């Protein structure tokens, strides 16, 4: 009699409470293939509680032996689903195709922080790997008892545990536990979010044993998209649903003082939803909701236009009082070193507000039924949205389910979380399920923005020409003026328009590099937002939050120093980086590019069309990237074409080289776009970049000829992130290439043709 069978005689309660490593809870022998089945099992008490310390919260084996992996993060398009599936299949010794990864549904996953900080593999995958390893250990022990063979004499092949000496003596995962849940306690670190970690007793495999990790397995979610068979969040419909649209003020900061519903009386079923500063419309038909939005007559409060002239933005930042200053690196005595310096080089750089400008504006559907809230959202952070909805609607957390569905691309805190909260407010008000989709201008002009900033760098030499001190200080709007998620009403437009108490956060960052200068200070300073409530210029996370800003400045400055010394930019960097992996990515990139050692700028070009190359490098939470841009410049028009990029990338262990290369490629194109074109513009009243004409991105006709990647694999080093690190050094690489070609230093992004032309005149 196996332990599993024995445990069946226990009462369910005793079983669930026992928590022994080999106790398996008894559930309905159901397929876990649908979320409905999972929630049913949960409701029936057949599943241990959905807590981080339960193995069943991460891994389940279906009756047919296939594996369900429940993941509290989600795939925003980089193929994370595949990578997590590979890690789980590897540790469980099941075929890759036997694993299905369920993502970002609060009904069946624990709070692992959502898509955040490129931690999908680094932290989320680490947990899934440990859970899968523990599941395998438990299954092998169960088989050991069933087969009466010691565990160390068993092997697992494709989900079948078999005697090494006699493969005919075997027990499959399906036989051992299929259709029932593990009831195995894990050693949880009591943290939620990205840092959640709950290993079992098992150790994961050694890299030498890998069969699935490291392989370029393809994504399976592409075909359904290409054949129009997959629903996006925008496609969800539920019975009784109405359509909603929001109305934003013409002058930021103003609120409705009079709403004339007679103005939409002719539009079938249309009505306005107005509470304090919150104003939306609903109708049975989507087109009618859009008409109501366009036609509703609203009188807005008179307010002083809140924004300074755009041209003065960087001066405003310069002159604003520092709200918070943090010195993150302080080596030696920087002030003394500058006082006694024989020579100082300094420069200042500027980066504008930028928009997520996701491919479609946000959409959410909220249904409140029998006191239970269900929300379909394209959010990156379902568990935070669950908390935000609970607070916004004043219901207990366990009465809210947020189900993530693929939405129109997301690169941080875009408009998705705001949309979920707005939809919830309306759903509560009208007592019907509400599908809310924003309009284009609401997605581009009203999303939380990547913060604008200025960056000062200076470097001191002694009389002998030796570098003695380096100081780098960023000053800008906060990366968390509103938080990175909609977990609290104060961080959402719904909360802010309804009048909750505000609490703008402070955060920025410093360069991540290993330059070894004897005295070194890296610091950041934040300033208050231009408008504190419901602002279209509220700032938060946009892909590699503040990374592109900071490293545009820091890596441009390093190039300026190399040029001032007449040194080759690569040789100069290699002389000062002290981290061996940093040096290795720089060398890998230069090797692939065919870098010719010489100082910048090149001085051999006289025509209208000139060409140059530039390098930049950076670290990001363990990952190292070196990028080299080759640019063509038309001096008569100022038009820049980034013809070629070479990116060398070291993120430790590579889980899927194909997914990694594509993640880098997307980062490069988006990074070129943000460097050459993107700038949120505003007048005194409002953000004026509201569509693809006013907020252009890199067109396909401007694509590089080639993007080449060098993937450095370190199977022995735990994987770090790859979703964002490669966008970090791109702007500096382009700026350095422009300098190489022209001798002109671009210190303000974007490098639009008019600005480039002006800089060269």
């Amino acid at each position, binding site marked *: 009699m196996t332990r599993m069978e024995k445990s069946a005689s226990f009462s369910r309660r005793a079983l669930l409470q026992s928590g022994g490593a080999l106790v398996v809870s008894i559930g309905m022998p159901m397929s876990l293939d649908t979320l409905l089945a999972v929630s049913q099992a949960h409701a029936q008490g057949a599943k241990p509680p959905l807590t981080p310390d339960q193995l069943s919260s991460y891994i389940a084996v279906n009756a047919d032996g296939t594996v369900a992996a429940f993941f509290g993060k989600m795939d925003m398009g980089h193929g994370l689903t595949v990578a997590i599936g590979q890690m789980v299949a590897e540790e469980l010794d099941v075929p890759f195709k036997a694993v299905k990864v369920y993502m970002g549904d609060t009904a069946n996953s624990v709070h692992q922080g959502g898509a955040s900080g490129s931690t999908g593999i680094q932290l989320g995958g680490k947990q899934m790997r440990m859970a899968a390893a523990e599941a395998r250990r438990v299954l092998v022990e169960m088989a050991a008892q069933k087969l009466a063979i010691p565990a160390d004499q068993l092997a697992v092949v494709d989900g079948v545990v078999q005697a090494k000496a006699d493969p005919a003596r075997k027990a499959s995962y399906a036989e051992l536990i299929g259709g029932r849940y593990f009831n195995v306690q894990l050693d949880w670190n009591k943290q939620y979010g990205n840092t959640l970690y709950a290993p079992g007793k098992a150790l994961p495999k050694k890299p030498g044993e890998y069969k699935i990790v490291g392989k370029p397995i393809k994504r399976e979610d*592409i075909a359904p*998209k290409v*054949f129009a068979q997959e629903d*996006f969040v925008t496609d969800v419909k539920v019975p009784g649903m109405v359509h909603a649209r929001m109305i934003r003020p013409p002058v930021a900061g103003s609120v409705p003082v009079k709403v004339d519903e007679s103005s939409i009386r002719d539009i079938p079923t249309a009505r306005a939803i107005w509470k304090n500063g919150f104003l939306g419309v609903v109708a049975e038909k989507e*087109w009618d909701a859009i008409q109501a939005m366009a036609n509703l007559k609203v009188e807005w409060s008179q307010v002083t236009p809140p924004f300074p002239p755009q041209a003065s933005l960087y001066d405003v930042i310069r002159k604003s009082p520092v709200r918070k200053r943090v010195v993150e690196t302080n080596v030696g005595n920087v002030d003394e070193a500058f006082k006694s310096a024989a020579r100082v080089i300094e420069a200042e750089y500027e980066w504008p507000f930028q928009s997520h400008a*996701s*491919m479609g504006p946000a959409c959410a559907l909220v249904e409140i039924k029998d006191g239970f809230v269900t929300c379909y959202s394209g959010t990156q952070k379902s568990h935070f949205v669950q908390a935000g909805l609970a607070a916004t609607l004043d219901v207990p957390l366990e009465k809210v389910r947020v189900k993530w569905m693929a939405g129109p691309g997301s690169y941080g805190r875009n408009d998705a979380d705001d949309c979920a909260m707005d939809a919830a407010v309306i759903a509560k008000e009208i007592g019907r399920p509400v599908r809310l989709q924003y309009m284009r201008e609401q997605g581009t002009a009203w999303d939380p923005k990547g913060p604008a900033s200025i960056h000062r760098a200076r470097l001191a030499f002694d009389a002998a020409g030796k570098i003695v001190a380096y100081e780098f200080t960023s000053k800008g709007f906060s990366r968390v003026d509103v938080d990175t998620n909609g977990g609290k009403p104060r961080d959402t437009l719904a909360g802010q328009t309804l009048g909750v108490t505000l609490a703008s956060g402070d955060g920025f960052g410093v360069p991540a590099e290993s330059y070894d200068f004897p005295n070194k200070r890296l610091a950041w300073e934040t300033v208050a937002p231009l408008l504190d409530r419901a602002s279209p210029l509220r700032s938060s996370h946009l892909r590699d939050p503040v990374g592109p800003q900071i490293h545009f400045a820091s890596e441009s400055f390093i190039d300026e120093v190399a040029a001032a010394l007449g040194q080759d930019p690569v040789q100069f960097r290699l002389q000062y980086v002290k981290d061996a992996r940093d040096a290795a990515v720089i060398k890998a990139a230069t090797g692939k590019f065919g870098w010719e050692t010489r100082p910048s700028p090149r001085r051999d070009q006289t025509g209208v069309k000139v060409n140059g190359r530039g390098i930049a490098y950076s670290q990001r939470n363990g990952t190292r990237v070196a990028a080299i841009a080759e640019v063509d410049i038309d001096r008569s028009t100022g038009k820049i074409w980034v013809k070629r990029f070479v990116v060398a990338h070291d993120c430790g262990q590579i889980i899927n080289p194909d997914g990694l290369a594509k993640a880098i490629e997307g980062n490069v*194109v*988006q990074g070129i776009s943000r460097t050459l074109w993107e700038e949120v513009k505003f007048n005194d009243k409002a953000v004026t970049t509201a569509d693809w004409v006013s907020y252009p991105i890199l067109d396909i006709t401007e*694509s590089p000829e080639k993007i080449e990647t060098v993937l450095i694999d370190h199977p022995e080093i735990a994987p770090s992130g790859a979703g964002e690190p490669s966008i970090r050094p791109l702007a500096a690489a382009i700026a350095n290439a422009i300098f190489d070609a022209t001798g002109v230093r671009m210190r303000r992004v974007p490098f639009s043709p008019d600005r480039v032309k002006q800089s060269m005149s």
Partner: protein
Amino acid sequence: MAQKFTLNVNGRDHTVDVDPDMPLLYALRNDIGLNNPHFGCGLAQCGACTVHLDGQAIRSCVTPVSAVGSGKVVTLAGLGTPEKPHPLQTAYVEEQVPQCGYCINGWIMTAAAFLRDKKKPTDAEIKTALEGLKCRCGTHMGILRAVKRASEMMG
């Protein structure tokens, strides 16, 4: 005032009772139940809503239902199926093009109309044919590889 229109979509007739000024996109998505064309901008700037009308790639977000008449509408779902894929769909899967995939309609439907009329286009001709379409995830390189691959499959 709502009016009745009969729209031929993916080879089938559908009668809808809608505002004549309503863009075709909403009829396809809400009245006919085809989710594949997406709302991206409503301004004909991005392409996410692209369908074919009598073989031409059009932006359904700005095309009034009343302008469709008896024209034949084909959406991405009507272009091909997993069993009988259009070469562009095959190439998109093989090249693993999309990230979020929300923009797919614009690229595939525009490229399908282009490749039908233009055999063996050069790289520059492909780029020009796709000018103005948006992909925010930055999958430009994959899109170009896939269209090139499809053009080779189409001979």
